[in-house]
């Protein structure tokens, strides 16, 4: 039974809520995906270091013909906190430098040896550094975790930004509900007066408004969620190709049940919060009127 005339405010509210839920879902998903990607990235690089050994072929012990690289490897083998290490092939190093340096120049550069090391624990890095510095001060260690520190800050900032976006969408959504409810109350002033004279309590009128708001918000939630899911599928395809190469990353596979639960809280919580706000708005308005 449509007691109140709310077609105008329903249309306005429907659009606003669909848009806000859509934006909030995008923000939550981007936040989730970026966190997951960064966590994955960080865990992959946390205990990873690269040792640069300049002039690797230089003989440092003329009697045994031991090169600087040999001596470095000897230290590494003796170091207890190393899980594994790999000496990068010259081709691999050239491939890394290739985009940065011209091929002709590359031929004339004396490339350092690069050793990729996975440590058992990251806090043993200073000991390793000391051991290598004793051999040569030119050898230096590059910690991948430190290398990605600026990126970590960017990720953390992005996460905060997504939280702010969710907060803003919630704020706009709730303000819109209050506005729509007040518009509805003004339009239906006479009907409300008649209902009061028949014996309606404010609670009944508030519940009637809440039912309307729930219907609109339920529909808006479904629309916003469907739109967001469609956008995710498109972005999933685009992101794979654009940033990670085909098959490197699958957004949907990365998201677990807990993340989906948080994600689904948005289209569920907005209507629930909406009916609370609508109810409180109607009751406050009617109390002021009486």
């Amino acid at each position, binding site marked *: 039974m449509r*007691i109140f*005339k709310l077609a105008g405010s329903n249309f306005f509210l429907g659009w606003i809520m669909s848009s806000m839920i859509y934006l909030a879902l995008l923000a939550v998903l981007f936040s989730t995906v970026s966190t997951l990607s960064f966590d994955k990235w960080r865990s992959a690089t946390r205990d990873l270091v690269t040792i640069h050994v300049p002039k690797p072929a230089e003989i440092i012990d003329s009697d045994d013909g031991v090169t600087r690289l040999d001596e470095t490897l000897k230290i590494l083998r003796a170091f207890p906190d190393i899980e594994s290490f790999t000496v990068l092939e010259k081709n691999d190093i050239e491939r890394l430098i290739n985009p940065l340096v011209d091929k002709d120049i590359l031929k004339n550069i004396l490339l350092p040896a690069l050793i990729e090391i996975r440590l058992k624990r990251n806090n043993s890095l200073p000991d390793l550094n000391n051991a290598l510095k004793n051999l040569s001060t030119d050898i230096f260690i590059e910690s991948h975790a430190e290398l990605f520190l600026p990126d970590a800050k960017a990720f953390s900032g992005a996460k905060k930004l997504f939280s702010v976006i969710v907060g803003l969408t919630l704020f706009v959504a709730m303000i819109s509900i209050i506005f729509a409810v007040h518009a509805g109350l003004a339009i239906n002033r006479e009907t409300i007066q008649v209902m009061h004279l*028949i014996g309606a309590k404010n609670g009944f009128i508030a519940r009637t408004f809440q039912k309307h708001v729930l219907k609109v918000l339920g529909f808006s939630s479904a629309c916003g969620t469907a739109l967001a899911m469609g956008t995710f599928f498109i972005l999933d395809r685009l992101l794979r190709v654009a940033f990670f190469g085909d098959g490197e990353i699958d957004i949907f596979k990365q998201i677990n049940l807990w993340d989906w639960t948080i994600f689904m809280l948005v289209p569920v919580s907005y209507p629930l919060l909406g009916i609370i706000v609508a109810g409180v708005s109607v009751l406050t308005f009617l109390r002021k009127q009486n």
Partner: protein
Amino acid sequence: MVRFENVEIRYRGKEAILTDVSFDLGEGNFHFLTGKSGAGKSSLLKAIYMGIFPSKGKINLFGRDISSITKKEIPEIRRRMGIVFQDFRLINNLTVRENVALPLRIFGTKSSIIRRHVPELLEWVGLGDHLDDLPTSLSGGQQQRVAIARAVIARPVLLLADEPTGNVDDTIADRLLYLFKELHRTGTNILIATHNENLLQKFDYPVLRIEDRKLSFSD
């Protein structure tokens, strides 16, 4: 049931409409309230359903002094009354059936009971063929009957009707009055405000008359 003791009614900043009004409507009564247009009939009814409160005197409703009734209690008191407004005050976006069902919905009556009673009552007031029509598609007399049906659907203890025959011809006015008589017979107390002297003569019920802001009583 309704007792006025030296009641004065005035709208804010204006001269008193009614002064020193005293009367007592007990159980099982049917009264007419008459007076010229603007005499204060509607204001008196308004005071009974607590649309306005007296500036002086005491009004007692169903054994309660209305000055002691809290805002929260007003709906409960109003639920014991049925009101037929002069301008009907039907909700135009609801069908005839929905308008009449509204009080029952408000009181939380079961849907099955509403589905049974509403068409029965509308049949009784001669609108059985208009259940799903909107009020705007009905004539003045039909709208009046919808308003009456809405006022009596919840079996009120007291029915207040403000010029219920004001918008209809004499034939329909007679029919409506017979309808009120029937309601009275089933136990509803009735107070009808009207300036139609013909009705007062045709139906022999006690009359409350407002003249010069005063109320007089005649059998």
